[in-house]
Each structure stands twice: as C-alpha cells, then as structure tokens.
C-alpha cells in the first residue's frame, strides 16, 4: 500500500509536545510536506524541468475550482513559512505560528478534497 504523506501532518501534531525551536521548525516542515506530498501524489504530477513545488502550486492555481485555487494560495503561504523555518535561522519561530501551520495544512487538504 502506497504511503500517504498526509501522515506527516499527524507527526507535526505529535511534535507539538516539544517546546524547543527545533520542534517548532520541524512542525512547520512536516505540515508543509504532509500536504504538499499528498496533493502532488493525487495530482499525479511528473515534473522534470521545473520545481515540483511550483508545479503543484500552479496546477492548483490554474484550476477552474475556486476551492483548489484557494488551496493553492494557502499552500504557497505554507511553502514560504517552510522555507523560512528550514533556512532562515535568524528569525525566531514562535509556537503559536506552528499551530497556525497545522490548521492551514488541514484546511488545504479539506479545500483540495472538497471538489
């Protein structure tokens, strides 16, 4: 049975038990990859000459479905947060922002699967 990356969102919830910035950054990372991987697999994207992150976002954004387009916007915002969490170590990550990322990840999946 194929692994569903959506399970990473459950891991991000478990990481909420931790109280270090490493936990917070990991929560954001797992939230993003959970929703991104789930949607990429469902869309069946095969990307060779561009970023698969960009292709997933653009595919949703170019959809005729408004919920999918809104999912695109939320996915893009979560992508930006994930990049900051992974690479921008100068800015402190707050715990309440992580909670928002988990909420966003679940909302993106709800929007994606509503059509």
């Amino acid at each position, binding site marked *: 049975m194929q692994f569903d990356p959506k399970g990473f969102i459950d891991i991000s919830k478990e990481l909420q038990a931790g109280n270090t910035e490493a936990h917070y950054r990991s929560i954001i990372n797992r939230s993003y990859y959970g929703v991104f991987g789930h949607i990429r697999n469902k869309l069946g994207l095969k990307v060779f000459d561009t970023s698969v992150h960009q292709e997933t976002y*653009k595919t949703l954004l170019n959809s005729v479905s408004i919920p999918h387009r809104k999912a695109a916007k939320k996915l893009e915002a979560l992508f930006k947060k994930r990049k900051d969490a992974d690479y921008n170590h100068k800015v402190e990550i707050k715990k309440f922002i992580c909670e928002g990322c988990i909420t966003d990840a679940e909302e993106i999946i709800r929007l994606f699967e509503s059509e």
Partner: protein
Amino acid sequence: MYNNTNTSTSQLDLTSISGNNVYYLTNNDQVKVVEHKEMSVLEAGHLLSIELKRQKIRSELEGLFLFKTKNNELDFLASHQDLRQLLPSIGDFFKKQFVEEMSFCLELMDEESNWQTLFINIGVSSSVNWQEANELVDSFFDNMFDLYPRVAEKLNIDFVANAI
C-alpha cells in the same frame, strides 16, 4: 533636469543608484549631481527614473505597508501596475478588519523568474484565532478571484509573529 549648482538638498537620498555617483533630489525636485565619474547621462537618467518611480510607489503606500527589503517589492509593483493600483484599497480593507494594532509588511517571494508573489505579511499575536484568520483569507480570495483574478495570482497573505 540636472542641476550641478550647490542648491540645498533634502527629501530623497539616491546614493544607492551608483557606487561612483552621488545624487540628491532638491526641494524643487531637481537633481544635484555631487560627484560624477563614469556614468553617462543616459544611464543616470534611466536609474534616476527607476528611483523616482520607487519613491512614488513608496509614497502611495505610506502608512499602509512596510517593506521587507529596500527595493524588491517596489520594483515588483513598478512592473505590475494592476496590483499597484489595487494595493491601497487592499491595505485599507485589512486595516479595518483588525481592532488591535497590526503590522502589514510587503514581502516579495522570488523563487524563480516565473514564480514571484507579493505577500502581505500580517503581524499577529499569540491570541490570534486561526479559524477566523482562515475565514478572512478565504473571504478575501473569494472576492479577488471573482473581481480581480489576474491580481489574485500575484498576491498572497501570510500571518507572521507580530513585531510591534
């Protein structure tokens, strides 16, 4: 246009436009070239027009938005007129949505040449209700996709920890 006399200077420091040339905008909007070593008048004029455009956009959005970087967001807006025209109304809209003082900062996400998005970073505190925040963004994009779909593609909203 160019005025090499020793007029009093103020308002806008244009020193960033060249390492070898120092320009100032005078009170009557004339440019005083303090030092000019290598740049041609055409080059200087071109760079000056870019800087004046940045200054104009900055003044249009004054009091509504901060800018993440000195020029990236301004240059993006300079090349996306539709977004530039709508942004003051969008700024007013978001300011009216929040009772407490919030910061609104523009940040250009520049991943690749064909993936550039201007983010409105809304500074929130730990008391933020994420469900309400999501509903606000949903409502905003419902309207944007309906009324301004091309602008909606270039714009996004993010909630960040408030720096205020």
